């Protein structure tokens, strides 16, 4: 089989005569969405009496759960249940995991919490407001444990273990070797090496997770509506966890979904959780995730560290690649992880003709939220490493970057091309696509702009990225992580089934359903174009319903909207089903028109004779025969008009004995070129020019195709410059709002020049390939390369925020000088706030000392204190109210005094925990007599975690040092007031200061 020659064009083809497929047709979905008539999961009516759930989450990155006291929460009117890990463990099993190491995860934390935001309890109540009130009354005692956050540190001997029973944080290691990389490295003229880190982020759909679950006790089944996106390989995982066969987990998806980008796969543990909650309370339960929960714990792309090396010849030709990939999946390995390590595996050599390859993959566990599906899925991580390496080769060999690309690209005319690790690239002409993109003066103009900028001393760089974009994953790719012998034992997985159904009703109206839940891509429009072409109808005549119902709709393990499987998969199944309906109608019409079936065509809403177009019947009349007059149908024909087609391309074979795997069915091509400039004052990276060339095979609807590319472009830009989930070294999560987690707005988006060529895929009947992920893969690499070029640096950390660029240009920032005579300016590492100082008090050391140890005095002076009790000698427990900005909550504080030296010094330590998060801290107070009073020297450290750190961080950053300094200054001033003892006031202000620090009403 050889691929057809590519069709070249820039921009969109005009609408016109000919088939509907290929036209830039506006969407049939839009009218309802533009009128506010979308039917999103939270808009769909829940049964009367449905209760509402709120998830209470861990404020600690790593801790043992010692005790959960739910009494007070249960006593609140409107609360129906408070569910904990113990309840969940009785009714369900841990989720299935892809590796052999024991990494059990239930829908709620059992015994141990492993990341900030991990669900610990569920409160079910009559309203969300009541459920959230009750969450503050659940009292949980944790024993904090050391957390491990850094990927490389986690792999070291002696690191805290996320799953002690797994005995290591590095699991599922595998190495692969293709060709003869050792000889190639030994014979290389040069070896170019680089370490590249891909950051952790998400694409945060604007609609968060929604689950409405009902347990049907009489049939022991679960009926769930959720904005789940697939893959439906997660369905058996959920059913197994719920201990029911698949037919007793009915999962339905709504008509509309507010974006997904892979993220809404990760609603699946909550589907199980809410199913169990419904079972426990005996009522339907609804849960709508809020944005803090979503940022904190919904899902993330895994961050990856790659050590990559190339064996190169003097002329820039690459003879071998070596990659050591360490991917950080957070605290659990949720199905289908570690997908991103293996999804690109067959295409590890990208667009380059490199025969020798070695790859080693390690799954790393840390105390961060679990990673999941995300647009690009392994591609951004792979290409950042590979494309940065290509740029480094150009620098180290002194050859132009674009020349290194040209000398290594897979040439035209060799497709289908078998890549070293097994991918079978279906079609393309990479050199041609690159030259078109560089041409028409585009590259020359960019070089000119760089030269001009540099001549005037500005930082300007040019970047390139070359990407092979997979579409429609082979379900066998993940089994590459198992050795061949194990694969043989467990049965070789492979293929990918797509399903679509075309139904024609008795009056000839056509409905299409398919196995791809809605996320906003416009699939209903595309499917209507495909089916309309086969049936001679207008796309407006076709109704497409993409709601899914696992009890009624045709689906298989690969179903879902992910990994660009729509165009090469679902669209093909719809095309096949429509062809079958067409053929059936042609036979029916032939009989009625008295002609041969070959002479009949469906066109303009009619079945007509090609040779005598006047001999025609309306489409509805012919279609109706199959319903109204089944006896009159041609011999042997089944009555009715409903066809479900199953598409499973034969190219998706299981991994071979030597671990070669054709990871996807289609492989598009993307070539990006950009010019960036770095602002000398703000250190912001400004994208000056961006050109992106795509070859996605035949475009089914160019308007929608470009929409996907533009959307992916901005998500790639976000990964390159803005978005990052930030944890401090103790695992506190610091980006819990959209003011901390920076999603680009219209202001940040540069112009994008899109170019296309079309090399139809020989492996799909419509010639189409997947196309929605390429720019997520290419843009981070292209911009990183441009920054490397602008700054002439080897390391380009992403996202390349002004802070990081500044660090490259200016070196580490100097600490600001202290302006206080006594106190040292507080400094901060992560969310630690530390400081020290001293002041003089007009009271005797004995008075101060006495108050420090008197519970009655303490209770009177602690603001917001509801109760204070002596737990043991010099250990107090206080129930206090504090707030972070507008959010207030109750906390339980434990304060201990230790290392007491009578009237001289004491160590003060304690913690504060509540629904808003936790703070822990310690301090040292020394008293020394001076003339007329006491000198008090102090130092302190306060660490925040949980919600307080995630949403309060920004406020604390700017306010903390001022507040603390003012607190101690004010303390020194006020100790002299005569009406109470000095010691009481010292402690009052200490507490008030802490309250202020937390934004309370001190």
């Amino acid at each position, binding site marked *: 089989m050889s691929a057809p020659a590519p069709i070249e064009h820039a921009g969109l083809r005009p609408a016109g005569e000919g088939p509907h497929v290929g036209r830039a047709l506006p969407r049939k979905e839009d009218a309802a969405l533009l009128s506010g008539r979308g039917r999103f999961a939270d808009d769909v009516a829940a049964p009367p009496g449905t209760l509402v759930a709120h998830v209470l989450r861990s404020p600690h990155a790593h801790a043992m759960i010692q005790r959960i006291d739910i009494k007070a929460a249960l006593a609140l009117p409107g609360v129906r249940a408070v569910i904990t890990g113990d309840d969940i463990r009785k009714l369900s099993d841990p989720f299935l995991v892809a590796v052999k190491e024991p990494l059990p995860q239930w829908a709620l934390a059992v015994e141990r919490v492993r990341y900030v935001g991990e669900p610990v309890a569920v409160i079910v109540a009559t309203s969300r407001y009541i459920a959230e009130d009750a969450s503050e009354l659940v009292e949980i005692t944790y024993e904090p444990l050391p957390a491990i956050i850094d990927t490389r540190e986690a792999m070291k001997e002696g690191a805290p273990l996320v799953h002690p029973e797994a005995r290591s944080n590095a699991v599922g290691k595998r190495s692969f070797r293709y060709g003869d990389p050792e000889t190639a490295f030994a014979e290389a003229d040069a070896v170019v090496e680089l370490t590249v880190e891909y950051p952790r982020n998400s694409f945060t759909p604007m609609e968060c997770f929604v689950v409405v679950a009902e347990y049907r006790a009489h049939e022991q089944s679960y009926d769930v509506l959720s904005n789940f996106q697939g893959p439906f390989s997660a369905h058996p995982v959920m059913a197994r966890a719920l201990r029911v066969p698949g037919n007793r987990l009915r999962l339905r998806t709504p008509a509309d979904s507010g974006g997904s980008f892979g993220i809404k796969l990760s609603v699946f543990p909550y589907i199980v959780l809410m199913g169990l909650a419904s079972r426990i309370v005996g009522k339907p339960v609804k849960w709508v995730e809020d*944005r803090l929960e979503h940022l904190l714990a919904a899902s993330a792309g895994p961050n990856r560290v790659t050590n990559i090396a190339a064996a190169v010849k003097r002329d820039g030709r690459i003879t071998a690649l070596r990659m050591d990939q360490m991917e950080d999946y957070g605290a659990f390995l949720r199905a289908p992880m570690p997908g991103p390590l293996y999804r690109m595996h067959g295409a590890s050599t990208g667009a380059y003709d490199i025969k020798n390859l070695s790859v080693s993959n390690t799954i790393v566990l840390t105390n961060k939220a679990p990673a999941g599906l995300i647009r690009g899925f392994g591609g951004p991580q792979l290409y950042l490493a590979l494309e940065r390496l290509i740029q480094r080769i150009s620098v180290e060999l002194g050859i132009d970057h674009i020349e290194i690309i040209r000398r290594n690209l897979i040439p035209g005319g060799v497709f289908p091309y078998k890549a070293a690790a097994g991918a079978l690239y279906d079609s393309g002409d990479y050199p041609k696509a690159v030259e078109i993109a560089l041409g028409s003066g585009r590259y020359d103009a960019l070089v000119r702009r760089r030269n001009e900028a540099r001549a005037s001393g500005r930082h300007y760089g040019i970047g390139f990225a070359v990407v092979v974009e997979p579409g429609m994953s082979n379900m066998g790719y993940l089994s590459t992580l198992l050795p061949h012998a194990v694969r043989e034992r467990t049965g070789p997985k492979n293929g990918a089934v797509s399903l679509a159904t075309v139904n024609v009703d008795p009056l000839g109206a056509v409905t299409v359903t398919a196995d791809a839940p809605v996320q906003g891509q416009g699939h209903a429009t595309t499917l209507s174009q495909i089916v309309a072409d086969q049936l001679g109808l207008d796309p407006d005549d076709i109704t497409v319903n993409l709601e899914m119902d696992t009890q009624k709709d045709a689906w298989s393990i690969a179903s879902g909207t992910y990994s660009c499987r729509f165009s090469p998969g679902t669209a093909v199944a719809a095309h096949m089903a429509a062809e079958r309906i067409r053929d059936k109608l042609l036979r029916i019409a032939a009989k009625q028109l008295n002609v041969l079936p070959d002479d009949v065509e469906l066109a303009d809403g009619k079945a007509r004779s090609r040779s005598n177009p006047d001999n025609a019947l309306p489409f509805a009349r012919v279609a109706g025969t199959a319903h109204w007059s089944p006896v009159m149908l041609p011999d042997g024909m089944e009555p009715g008009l409903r066809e479900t087609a199953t598409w499973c391309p034969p190219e998706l074979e299981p991994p071979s004995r030597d671990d070669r795997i054709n990871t996807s069915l289609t492989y598009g091509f993307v070539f990006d070129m950009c010019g960036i400039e770095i602002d000398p004052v703000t250190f912001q990276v400004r994208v000056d020019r961006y050109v992106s060339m795509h070859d996605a095979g035949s475009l089914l609807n160019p308007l929608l195709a470009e929409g996907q590319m533009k959307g992916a472009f*901005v998500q790639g830009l976000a990964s390159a410059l803005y978005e990052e989930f930030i944890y401090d070294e103790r695992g506190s999560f610091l980006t819990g709002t959209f003011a901390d987690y920076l999603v680009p707005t219209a202001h940040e988006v540069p112009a994008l020049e899109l170019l296309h060529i079309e090399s139809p895929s020989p492996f799909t009947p419509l010639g189409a390939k997947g196309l929605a992920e390429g720019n997520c893969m290419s843009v981070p690499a292209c911009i990183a390369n441009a920054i490397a070029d602008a700054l002439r640096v080897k390391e380009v950390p992403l996202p390349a925020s002004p802070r990081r660029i500044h660090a490259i240009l200016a070196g580490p920032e100097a600490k600001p000088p202290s302006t206080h005579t006594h106190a040292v300016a507080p400094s901060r590492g992560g969310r630690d706030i530390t400081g020290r100082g001293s002041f003089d008090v007009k009271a005797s050391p004995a008075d101060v000392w006495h108050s420090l140890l008197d519970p009655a005095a303490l209770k009177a002076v602690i603001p917001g204190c509801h109760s204070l009790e002596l737990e043991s000698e010099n250990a107090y427990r206080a129930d206090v109210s504090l707030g972070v900005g507008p959010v207030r909550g109750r906390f339980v504080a434990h304060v201990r005094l230790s290392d007491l030296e009578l009237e001289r010094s004491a160590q003060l330590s304690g913690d504060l925990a509540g629904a808003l998060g936790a703070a822990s801290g310690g301090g040292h107070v020394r008293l020394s007599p001076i003339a007329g009073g006491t000198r008090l020297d102090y130092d302190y450290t306060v660490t925040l975690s949980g919600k307080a750190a995630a949403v309060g961080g920004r406020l604390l950053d700017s306010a903390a040092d001022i507040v603390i300094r003012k607190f101690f200054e004010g303390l020194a001033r006020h100790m002299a007031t005569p009406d109470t003892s000095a010691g009481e006031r010292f402690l009052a202000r200490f507490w008030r200061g802490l309250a202020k620090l937390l934004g309370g009403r001190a």
Partner: protein
Amino acid sequence: MSEIEKGARVPVQLVLNGTAHTGFAESRMLLSDFLREVLGATDVHVGCEHGVCGCCTVLIDGVAARSCLTLAVQAEATTIETASSLASADGELNHLQAAFRKHHALQCGFCTPGILMSLTDLLRREPEPTRERVVDVVSGHLCRCTGYSGIIDAAMDAVNAGSPKT
């Protein structure tokens, strides 16, 4: 200003898309929750509940506002407009909506109602805004699907076609 006791549910009267409504709300209830759950206005979308994303934007007495940063009781005696008021009664899209469709300015459509309301406010006050001004207004909203360029093009198209029918 009268004081509302904690936990008490008080009547809130307002005009939503031309129809007078009365519903009951606790003092702490957000306007976004009130519109969706009490009055059934599911075209008001909730995306972040901290005022950044703009999904919940409605017009309160003609001015675009975040309904998640407004309490229901603050909306007493106001006139509120949401996206479902933009098309004509028989479903015909106005200039702005039609331009959104033409320019593929929406994909999942979740952020769209809020963006339409901000642009409606803009185009009523400033019928001929510059492109920069439109970018400025749209930058008050987050959209994850489109990359914004279609939205800006659509808004400029609507400017050129004349202000939206309202």
